[in-house]
């Protein structure tokens, strides 16, 4: 059920990623200020946006779980957050590489954008020990959903706080009058954003399919273990 449409989605992701890479290296002009190093922007920023949106999406799924009690929403929430944490690792590493090349330091502590992302990342890093510290599956799902909703609400608040910090070190290219992207760069950026977002969706679907298969195997094992077959029911992918 979860694997439905995975193949066309994977193909679309690969094609979009290839097209985005072509645009990045053969179409987008070199930045007048940063030169070739600015190419990291087309990877780093879409990854960051996708990871942050993924955290919020995880919170939305958690709300659906708390409202309905359906464990499938908890699985969606868990996998969304899990994938966003992986993307978050990529954001931190690519950001550090970009910082080293641009500013000469791997990390700059007085830059609100970097530090705020690190805070969000560390917040979500606590999701795993928090979740797996609870043994009862129902309570685990419920508490994890409460965490996902709270942390998900923190993400846009954090984003707004950074925007209001008015840093001069990290210019806001989409908002400032002098920092707007030319059309060729904007097109390349949007193509990269779509490609990375598609990658996120594909990997989420892939993970859900694997978890669902694992859950079905456990269910099959229980059914074979039982003396008489029980009533058939739709089982959510098992998280863990």
């Amino acid at each position: 059920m979860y694997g439905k449409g995975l193949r066309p989605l994977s193909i679309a992701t690969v094609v979009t990623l290839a097209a985005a890479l072509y645009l990045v290296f053969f179409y987008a002009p070199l930045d007048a200020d940063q030169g070739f190093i600015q190419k990291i922007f087309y990877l780093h920023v879409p990854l960051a946006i996708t990871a942050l949106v993924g955290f919020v999406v995880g919170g939305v799924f958690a709300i659906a779980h708390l409202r309905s009690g359906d464990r499938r929403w908890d699985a969606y929430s868990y996998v969304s957050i899990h994938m966003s944490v992986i993307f978050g690792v990529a954001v931190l590493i690519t950001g550090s590489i970009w910082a080293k090349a641009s500013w000469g330091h791997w990390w700059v502590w007085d830059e609100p954008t970097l530090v705020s992302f690190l805070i969000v990342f560390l917040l979500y890093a606590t999701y795993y020990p928090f979740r797996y510290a609870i043994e009862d599956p129902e309570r685990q799902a419920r508490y994890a959903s409460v965490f996902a909703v709270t942390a998900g609400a923190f993400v846009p608040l954090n984003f707004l706080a950074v925007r209001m910090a008015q840093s001069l070190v990290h210019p806001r290219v989409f908002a400032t009058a002098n920092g707007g992207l030319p059309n060729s760069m904007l097109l390349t950026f949007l193509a990269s954003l779509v490609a990375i977002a598609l990658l996120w969706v594909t990997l989420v679907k892939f993970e859900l399919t694997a978890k669902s298969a694992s859950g079905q195997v456990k269910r099959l094992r229980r059914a074979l273990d039982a003396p008489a077959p029980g009533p058939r029911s739709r089982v959510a992918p098992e998280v863990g």
Partner: protein
Amino acid sequence: MPALPLDEAGKYVAGAYIVFLVLIVIYVAIMAAKLQRIEKELRELARFAESRATSDQAAPGRGSGTPSISDSLASHGSRGGGA
């Protein structure tokens, strides 16, 4: 800071894109290992179901004498973990 020359900037850009690629490859490798484990468990379950069906055909109505799936999988050395 002034823009880095292409040969130096290229190392950083390549590094960033390679890190991304490596992370994806590691993730896919972990998922592949999990899928292999699921496949192995499914094979064992199928083997057990087939052996149980054969024993049921040989002695209809008998159920208690059939070994449980846990016993059967334990004898095959399965860990029984999920993804």
